[in-house]
């Protein structure tokens, strides 16, 4: 009886240690990558238009500098000849994998850097995540270049989840006056939108700024959005696969552990 009990307990201990090791190494891998975030507007019922594209460089689980914005109207020579731009890569492709590959190619060519992973974030998902941690303060200086004229204006406000969702959809620009918006050509508003969303995302990733309850709430909402495919990660690694397929309660523990580790 004792031998059976010993063997069972030993196996359980080895399993737990292996499980923790797998999640820890998976988190470590993700926190040292260059990740492309594509913020989507799916209101038209299509696969989603890329409204904001941002590159985040992570090192030791911390964001290096600001997110790099990429114009949704950029493209490669080959894709431009087919009429495919970053904003419509998902719409104008036969499959999601092909669309993501095209988007990655365009961003890598435009930004001249290698992207390790692509993450799609729906406008609704961003709203839910922001709502989990209260309004996000934004204090930036936007300087879009319109032909030979450079605009320059500050944005100092708090962005709620709904405002961020509307911002991605181009319906509302928090902290920007109507006069400024009207004075800018519509084709250049993506820069304002990208700066606001990048600032919000950057603040969201600063997990150390949150209380343990907020961290837990953020982790739980992220898991729900991820499992319902509103946040989609292309080429999931082991830990993301575990989070996607394991029961939701276990997945929440894994993500909560990741958030604590990064914080």
């Amino acid at each position, binding site marked *: 009886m004792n031998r059976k009990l010993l063997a069972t*307990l030993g196996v359980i201990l080895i399993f737990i240690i292996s499980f923790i090791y797998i999640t820890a190494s998976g988190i470590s891998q993700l926190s040292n990558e260059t990740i492309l975030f594509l913020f989507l507007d799916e209101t038209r019922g299509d696969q989603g238009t890329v409204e904001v594209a941002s590159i985040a460089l992570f090192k030791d689980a911390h964001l290096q500098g600001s997110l790099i914005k990429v114009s949704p109207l950029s493209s490669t020579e080959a894709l431009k000849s087919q009429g495919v731009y970053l904003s419509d890569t998902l719409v104008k492709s036969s499959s999601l994998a092909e669309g993501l590959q095209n988007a990655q190619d365009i961003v890598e060519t435009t930004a001249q850097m290698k992207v390790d992973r692509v993450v799609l974030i729906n406008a609704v998902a961003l709203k839910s995540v922001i709502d989990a941690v209260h309004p996000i303060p934004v204090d930036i200086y936007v300087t879009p270049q319109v032909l030979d004229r450079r605009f320059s204006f500050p944005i100092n406000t708090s962005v709620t989840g709904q405002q961020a969702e509307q911002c991605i959809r181009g319906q509302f620009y928090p902290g920007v006056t109507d006069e400024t918006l009207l004075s800018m050509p519509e084709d250049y508003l993506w820069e304002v939108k990208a700066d606001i969303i990048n600032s919000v995302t950057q603040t969201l990733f600063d997990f150390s700024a949150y209380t343990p309850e907020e961290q837990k709430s953020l982790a739980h909402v992220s898991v729900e959005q991820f499992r319902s495919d509103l946040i989609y990660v292309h080429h999931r690694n082991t830990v993301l696969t575990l989070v996607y397929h394991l029961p939701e309660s276990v997945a929440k523990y894994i993500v909560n552990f990741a958030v604590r580790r990064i914080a």
Partner: protein
Amino acid sequence: MTTIRQEITSFLDGLVIGFLIASILLFLLLYADFVPAYSYLLALLVGGCVAGLIARGLWKGGVSAFFSGFFALFLFQVTREFLSLEYEFSLYQIMVGFVAVIVGGCVGGFLTRPTVIVLAQQKGEPQKVYVCPQCSAEIPLKTKYCPECGARLQKVPLTEKIQKITRTGGEES
């Protein structure tokens, strides 16, 4: 010899099972962030208690639990770096942990301490023993005839006979 072997076996069983349970709880509770400041104490207390229950005996349980707690903490310290469990125990916390595991072990050991079976002596008069006048065989039961030689027994039991001899000093009246 067998008793010593059994004692050692139960001690080692308690130590190993206590260590495994303490380690499992320690890793699980800290991974799940279950009140980290106290969860390690809970893990050590439970592990120690199990060690004591299996080892049996107050001292044996305490010592067995101490070693199981020591090995559980050692395993945690060795693995916490690559498991990203960023909990660093202070010397004070380790000392409190040892107290918890020993208390658990002592409680567990006390609950399953070996019980001394004392057979109660039969109360009442001592059983009378008869002696056969023919063959001098001692007959414990009250029978009419001696089971050894078949002679008819006297009615005077041996115990009374001894008392009589003690009184008279062995001289027949």
